[in-house]
Structures are given as C-alpha cells and as structure tokens.
C-alpha cells in the first residue's frame, strides 16, 4: 500500500486521540509503517482535538499530513475546517448526527461532491444504543475499516482487545455496528 494520509478531528472527550492510537496500532499489526501526530486545544473537554496518521508500506520520511486521503470528522468544526483541503477521490467519513454536510460545495443528492466522497454513520447514536456512549470513536473505527480496508478487521479487533482489556466486549460490539454500517457504501 502506498502512503495514505488520515485526519481525525473532533471535540475533546470524543476519543479522537484514542481512535488515532487504535488505527495506528492496528495498521502496525497489518505490517505497515505508521506515524501519528496529534494536536489539541488547551481545554481538556470541549476544546478541539485532532490526530493525523500517515500509513504506508514503505518507510515514512515526511511524517505529517498535508492532503488527507481520509477525513474522519466527529464534529461540525472538524468537517468545516478541513473539507476544503480534501482532494478528488478522497473520502470524508462523518458522524451523520453531529455533522451537517449538506452545505458542502458541490454536494449533490448522492452525497458525492465535486472532489470528495462523503459518507455518514450515526456513530454516537450506535454508542448510546449499546449503553456505552463513549464508544462512538470505536464505531467510527469499524466504519473506516469497512470502507477503506485500512486497517484490516482482524487487526482492528486485536488492537481493541489490547487497548481495552477490561471492556473489550462492548467495544467490539460498537466496532461491529460501525463496520456493518459501512456495508451500504461498498
């Protein structure tokens, strides 16, 4: 796999950095090279938070993200502040309950913009319905894995179990729901 760039953006408390670590360690299990950088505002909860990942089969020289192939927008700000940089053929994954993408430039009924493809999943709703409202990021993890194949489902599961040894079961459930939701975009 050639170099792919990912940007995850959301509010503090949504598990943006955790999601970055989940993706990164799963990609590692897939045998890829990974570089992840993170940024956040001074507020712990309620401020913005972002994680950037570069995943590649080859050694990664420049470790930062410039033109994401995938944007994971967990809140409106994440969508608004990054949509302009998304190129043709790139994918934008949003939490459809929290992000209104209808105003995006060139956004037709098919959800296809002039440059990027927008796909929504009710990640937070899934988490709430499972009784684990904090696992929206893990549902998004499943959604990404289904749509992009990066990382593979098998490695994602392993990285979830390693990260949440005591809460593996509920997080696996959230992952599966997100993964299933990705099916309709195949």
């Amino acid at each position, binding site marked *: 796999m050639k170099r792919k760039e990912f940007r995850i953006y959301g509010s503090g408390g949504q598990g943006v950095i955790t999601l970055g670590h989940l993706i990164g360690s799963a990609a590692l299990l897939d045998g890829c090279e*990974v*570089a992840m*950088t993170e940024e956040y505002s001074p507020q712990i909860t309620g401020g913005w938070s972002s994680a950037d990942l570069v995943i590649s089969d080859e050694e990664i020289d420049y470790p930062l993200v410039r033109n994401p192939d995938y944007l994971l927008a967990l809140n409106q700000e994440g969508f608004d502040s990054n949509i302009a940089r998304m190129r043709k053929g790139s994918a934008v994954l949003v939490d459809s309950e929290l992000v209104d993408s209808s105003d995006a430039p060139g956004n037709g009924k098919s959800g296809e913009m002039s440059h990027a493809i927008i796909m929504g999943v009710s990640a937070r709703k899934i988490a709430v319905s499972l009784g684990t409202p904090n696992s929206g990021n893990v549902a998004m993890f499943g959604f990404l894995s289904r749509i992009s194949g990066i990382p593979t489902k098998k490695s994602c599961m392993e990285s979830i179990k390693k990260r949440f040894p005591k809460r593996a079961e509920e997080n696996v459930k959230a992952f599966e729901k997100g993964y299933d939701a990705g099916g309709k975009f195949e």
Partner: protein
Amino acid sequence: MIVKGLIDPGKHFISGNFACAEAALIAGCRFYAGYPITPSSEILERLSSRLPMVGGHFVEMEDEIGSMAAILGAANAGLKSMTATSGPGFSLMQENIGLGMITETPCVVVNEMRSGPSTGIPTRVGQGDIMQAHWGTHGDVESISYCPNSVQEMFDLTITAFNSAEKYRQPVIMLPDQVIGHMSEKIVVKQPWEYEIVPRLTISSRKADDKLVDFSTDFSPMFLAGTGIRGNFESLTHDEMGYPSNSSAVEAKMMNHLLGKIRDHRDSIVEFEKYETDDAETLLVAYGVTSRVMERVVREGRNKGLKIGLFRPITIWPFPDREIRKLSKRVQRIIVTEINYGQYSHSVRENSDAPVEEMHFPPGAVPDPDTVLKSISKPAKQEKHRREKGK
C-alpha cells in the same frame, strides 16, 4: 541481570516521550526529578508510574533548578539519574549543568525543543536550543548532545545517552524537538540482554593520600557519597585530591582532563547519517524533524534530476567537523536547514570549504517539502556567482 517490569520486547506503537521513558528504565535509570513542562511532560508522567515498578524513585520538584540539583545529588549517591524539560526549564538548569560538568557527574538531561525565546509557543516545534545545548552554561565545556529524528531513535539514543554519561562522566543532553516527542511511531524493542549497558565504575575504598580523580586518565572510577569513603565534591577548580585551588596550572590540568576526555574520544562519540551524498552537488544539512522533511526533498528532487543529498548529524555535539569538511570538498554548495534563525549554520560554515547558505524556518511549524524543493531548484545562476565570489 534480568530486571522485571521493563517494556516487553517486540513491536510497539508508542510516542517519542513514552519511548524515552521506557528506554531510560532499560538503561538503568532509577531516579527522576523534574518539573512538568510541555512538550516533555509525558516523560515525567510515564516515569512517575513506571519508576516505582522497577524499584526506582520519582520526585516532582518545585522547579527546574531543583530538578537538576536533585539528579546530580542522586547520581553522586550512586543512581543513574535523569530529568526532562523544555527551553524555559533548560535555561534554569544551566548553572547546575555546569556543576555536573566540573564534578564529573553522569546524568541525562532531556531538552525537548519548542518555539522560543522565553515561553514562546509551548505546544509547537522549534530548534532554537542548538547552541544552548553546548554553550548554555558558563565556562568551557565539551557537550555531548543527541538529536533523534524518529521515535525508534528517541528510544535507542536515550540508552546511548545514559551509556555516554557513564563512560565520559558528565551530563549528557538529549535534544529532540517537539514533533519527535509527541509523535507516535513503531518501535522495535530488543531483549534486555541485547542492549549494551555501561555500568558505573566506583571506588570501594580510599586511603588518605589516594587521588580522588586521576587527571592523567580519561576514565576514573567514581567516588560515591554515603559509602563511608571520605572525599570532596568541588565546584571550584580543583586538583586530583578534590581540593580547591587558585592556581592556573591546576586549572589547566583539570580543564585538559575535562575537555580531553571528550575530544580524545570524539570518533567513538560522533554519529551521523548520509543520504544520497555520493554524487551530490547540493548538500542539505538537517537534524531532528527537519531531516525527515529534507529526506523527502532529496527523494523528490532526485526524481526531478537534481543532484542533491542530505547530511544528518545525530550527535549535534561534538560537531561532526571532519565529515562536513570532507563532503564540502566535493559539493558545490551546502544548505543548512533548521527551525530557527540560524544556529547550526555557524558551525557548518566554520568547517566547510563550499559556500554555506542558510534556510531558516520560523518556529511553530514544520517546513513544507514542496516549498523547500522549489526554492532549492531555483538559484543555479546565483549559486555560480557566489562561488566565484568566494574564491
């Protein structure tokens, strides 16, 4: 000896700061004193929970002056010691770094570079402490400073830094930038016994007329506090018995020893990496995260037919002077690229036969490879003019 509680061998996806903390434990660090400061705080955070697991000690100090003093104390009482900080804290530590130099106290100081001067932009990258790592403390010293450009190197060089500190008996500086500290990457951890760990050499007894330090040899065993052996820790210029002296002859002898133990072993300390330098006409010099940018620039430049290469100092200090000199004889120009307003370029120019250009990037952001490549490919004419002018 197998120590329980060290990081598991194998692959890990881990941040530079956590990697540094885990490597310190492998190297035998059993004392940390520090004051939290972005972007180095995760080293302190990790060691606050990890040190007790391996029988070590962790102290959160009142400030960085105290932190540096505490690790010198612990080191002189026998423990391998470390602190971590960033620019503002590093400034406060300078006086006691000098104390560590003259008392020949092994310890590791991590200074994670952010934007400066003063408190600057705490969460953003800078490379402005290059000169400070050598010349921050007063008087003449030879600095050993390591500048990693990946998380794996942050891990490996932390172990090297501890080994150098023990071998050469002085504070050794780890000089990562903010990006390297906060970035997460893959590291491969070997089995603990596969790492070379330099043990501390100490004296077990001393007669009244035995020397405390032998200035005629580069490596003397250490005298430790609290062992019942009588001796002096002296910050004043001192003789081999450890007693202070006003004599310039004694000063010359002591300094010859302090500087000589590094200069004589320069070849075994200096580390660097060359990338595509064999036929390069333009040589880039870069360290830390900037070298990752320039690696991309070289790769893309080569695709476009530019004869371009990269020299990356891993030990910022001692300066890789002979290596730069050698390369400068066969390239047309050298461009020093750094996230500051011109620091390392001074030393490169001093040691180069080719014209040296400076490319500065304002602290707060990592330079963009496309912009760099564009500006490098342009000035062929100007370059020729400059070369003629230099003759």
